[in-house]
């Protein structure tokens, strides 16, 4: 099997700027087919940006982003939407449609992309909602849900069409311990049962490491470490060690770049 058969997504020499700020500088990533790949890193390293580049919502300044052999920035609008119907994405905020119920939110992708009869749509939606534990909440409106519940509904919607690729943006944030356990298991189970490819963006180290097959750690616009969870957790690289073990002191800065605190305080008001 050649590399391009093995990998669902290939990112090569990716450079991306937001204004003048460098988000990525020559980043290379491979997301293998049928596996769970995690993208981790401190806040503000552009983990979500990576998902948007893969989904074609942002265009790279240079480099290639290939999904299933297709270079995303070169696709026409129509081709891009066709490709996206094979992707599911769980947004950080959930991004539920606020004018329709939980049921209709999950049914939405089925209605627009399939010709299934209504009773079958109902069955599929109830199954997906059951998987995330919210079958009983089907008639609620999105504004009646808590943040964690909204994200679980969004998860049900993202997998409604059984897509080839599912991107989870912070799936564990805001979940109570029980729901967290279920979501972790669910992601693993879905991936193995449906054979799709999963990308998890998260900074919950323990949960992510427990289900990921491969981990990339991004910081300062580059990949600072990669490998199986075991390799990454026990790496000797000081930056990786600090991030994975959550140590306050180390080479990864906690502070957003700024001048010296003393100078800043003494400078006074101009």
């Amino acid at each position: 099997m050649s590399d391009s058969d093995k990998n669902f997504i290939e990112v090569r020499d990716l450079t991306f700027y937001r204004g003048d700020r460098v988000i990525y500088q020559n980043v290379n990533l491979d997301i293998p087919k049928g596996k769970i790949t995690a993208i981790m890193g401190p806040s503000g390293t552009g983990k979500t940006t990576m998902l948007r580049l893969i989904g074609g919502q942002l265009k790279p300044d240079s480099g290639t982003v290939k999904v299933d052999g297709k270079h995303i920035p070169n696709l026409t609008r129509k081709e891009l939407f066709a490709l996206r119907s094979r992707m599911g994405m769980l947004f950080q905020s959930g991004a539920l449609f606020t004018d329709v119920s939980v049921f209709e939110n999950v049914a939405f992708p089925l209605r627009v992309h399939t010709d299934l009869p209504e009773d079958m749509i109902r069955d599929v939606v109830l199954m997906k909602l059951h998987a995330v534990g919210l079958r009983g909440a089907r008639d609620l409106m999105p504004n009646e849900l808590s943040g964690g519940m909204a994200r679980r509904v969004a998860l049900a919607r993202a997998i409604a069409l059984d897509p080839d690729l599912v991107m989870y943006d912070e799936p564990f944030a805001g979940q109570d311990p029980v729901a967290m356990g279920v979501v972790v298991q669910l992601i693993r189970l879905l991936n193995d049962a449906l054979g799709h490819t999963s990308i998890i963006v998260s900074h919950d180290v323990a949960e992510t490491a427990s289900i990921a097959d491969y981990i990339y750690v991004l910081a300062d616009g580059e990949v600072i470490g990669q490998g199986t969870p075991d390799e990454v957790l026990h790496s000797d690289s000081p930056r990786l060690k600090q991030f994975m073990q959550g140590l306050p002191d180390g080479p990864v800065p906690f502070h957003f770049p700024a001048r010296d605190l003393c100078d800043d305080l003494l400078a006074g008001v101009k």
Partner: protein
Amino acid sequence: MVIQALRRIGSKGVSFLETFGASGMFLFQSLFAMPNVRNNFPLLVKQIYSVGVMSLIIIMVSGFFIGMVLALQGYNILTRYGSEQALGQLVSLTLLRELGPVVAALLFAGRAGSALTAEIGLMKSTEQIAGLEMIGVDPLRRVIAPRFWAGVICMPVLAIIFSSVGIWGASLVGVDWLGVYSGSFWANMQDSVQFSDDVLNGVIKSIAFGFVITWIAVFQGYDTEPTSEGIGQATTRTVVYASLAILGLDFILTAVMFGDL
């Protein structure tokens, strides 16, 4: 100093042209998106309800009062020349040619245009637009096109309703209160109002206004900075730009239609 000022003007001009071009592309893509009738018709009906039907009350109440005021003012002036029987003509021509389309459009921009901008802006800031894109649904087709067409369809209907209610209000004041002879009120109106010149031109005007208002409203919503401040500014811009565009366009259309150029 001078060069800096020039540079600023230049960059403002370029960014204006960029926005204008982007909004043109945006309009083109929404209009020429192949409509899927089965899926999109219910969406259009829903939008006609929220854009058009929900604007009915403000349009009817304003039309009623404007008609009554016109009759009062007109009667005052016409009696000086002893020609109060021409009141019906005055009121109907004013409403059908000018006030109907223009005032209805200004109200529509404030009532429906601002709501469209805020709704689309909030959909953007809550990632619903991005969500649609990632589900593989073009938001231009799903969100923008039905709202745009609803605006274009509703505006002329609202303007006609505005004028009709206005004429009724004028007859209440002129005929029932001030005592203008009802026969001459209505007969003068019938004699002087031409369908092709007055009614149709008013309808054409209001279609043009509907087009411009909803274009501005949906583009401002779609293009907004997805923050609470950005949505506020975009909503304001919709009302300001749409009102100015209505008044400017009205002058041009009037000159072409009635100016004997």
